[in-house]
């Protein structure tokens, strides 16, 4: 793909990125940061791509290191965000059910 097409995608993504989080309330800052952190774990795709065409051992081992690091970022990021958000469930309905 040519450079201008990639640049277009880049610039439009900046605007989307700013737009989608512009109204977030302070209570969600931490989960949002954590969720965004998990999303950049998709760098795993890049790690797989470079490792899949590694031509010598140095590249292979570096690539495998990158894969391990990126998987930690991705899986850990989504799981820890889910743990945080699990606690934001509306608690009231549960309690009412218990008291009934």
């Amino acid at each position: 793909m040519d450079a201008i097409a990639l640049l277009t995608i880049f610039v439009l993504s900046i605007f989307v990125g700013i737009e989608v989080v512009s109204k977030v309330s302070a209570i969600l800052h931490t989960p949002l940061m954590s969720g965004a952190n998990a999303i950049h774990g998709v760098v795993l795709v890049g790690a797989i791509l470079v490792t899949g065409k590694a031509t010598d051992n140095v590249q292979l081992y570096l690539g495998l290191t990158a894969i391990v690091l990126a998987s930690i970022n991705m899986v850990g990021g989504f799981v820890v965000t889910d743990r945080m958000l699990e606690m934001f469930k509306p608690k009231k309905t549960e309690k009412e059910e218990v008291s009934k």
Partner: protein
Amino acid sequence: MTPTWVRAAELAASVLFILALKGLSSPKSARRGNLLGALGATIATFVAFFYGETFFGGPIQHLPEILVAIIIGSIIGWIAAKRVQMTQMPQMVALFNGVGGGAAAVISVIEFLSAGNEETVAMLTATIFTVVVGSVSFTGSLLTFAKLQELMTSRPVVIPLGRFITIGVAVGTVVTAVALVMNPSNTLLWLLLGLSLTLGILLVLPVGGADVPIVISLLNAFTGLSVAASGYVLGNVLLIVAGTLVGASGTLLTRMMAQAMGRPLTNTLFGAFTAKATTATASAEDRPVKSASPDDVAIMLAYARKVIIVPGYGLAVAQAQNTIRELVELLVAKGIEVDYAIHPVAGRMPGHMNVLLAEANVPYDQLKEMDEINPEFPATDVALVVGANDVVNPAARDDKTAPIYGMPILNVDQAQQVVFLKRSMRPGFAGIENEVLFDPKTSLLFGDAKDSLTKVVSALKSL
């Protein structure tokens, strides 16, 4: 060409990432948003194996090793995320962010080694940008982890001539990066890697306690940008979209956090360069404070009409969230009006306290945000501050020389009576003395927050 279905799947993953961020911005849809993001990431990872001839020059190589590496990383990430206590979550996010940045840097190093001399200038620039930013994010995040985990002091570390060393290393990094673009060589690459890793450490060292979360958020945005740049290098649209989304939203989020703390971003990052290491002013032991027993506190609370609880990180460290909820339930049963006042940066990160209290089943509607609750302090009989300090320190409002000056605070000093539950007279995270502690209307109950609260609860029950 990359198969069309692979590119369609990438489009789907990009959309899922946008929906994820959008979902995470509202409490109702947040959890679903995160799951959508996870789905997008799973799709993206799956199709990465099918890029085909143009990319791999045949089927993907080293498949077994790659799968094993993914499994190892996933297990480590899963266990770490499941085991971490909610109080330690900020440093966990820092750590995850750091390894992501590290991965981006390593990818670019490989790209350079495999095709360094044949790359176009634009490609080389993007590659080298990723090496620098990814490395800064890596060591910077590891250092914030060390600070928050208290493996080292959380105070600003000011090394002699630190400012000049940092500027020197920064200039060295830029010069090496430019030289590398003009004249690619492996030696220069290793030099650049070393300089960038050092720069990450130097940039974070002088950042003090309460500002660390802002730095985590900023490094998060950095990692996003380095991922976007590595997407450009690999010609991968999905990485560009995902990385840029995180970079842009992360930058905005960093600004919002800094605003919540009343600090321009530049102060956070460079303030400590100029600041002297904060030494405690007049030694605290010399000044009289009024200490109270659990019974005194119970009586004060029982005869109040309106009570505001100000929870801080100390509450969570003492694992006292459930005890405080029990106390509040008792008071509410007595017909007393009770609210929690949540400072935007209570805990270690913006919104952290909400997570910690939600974990203890504290009803959502009792949590009041700062702007909502501040006008109510003058009409409040007792403000009960549990394990918080900096967020109620009037120095932020009145003392222009204080490092936290300008940070909005909860005006507990306007309440009729103030009760502090504290472990000791040690100053808070930011390391500044709090004048409210010496106010005649303030009582202090020393001890572990959970112990103290348990005693207050039993005293209340026997009244």
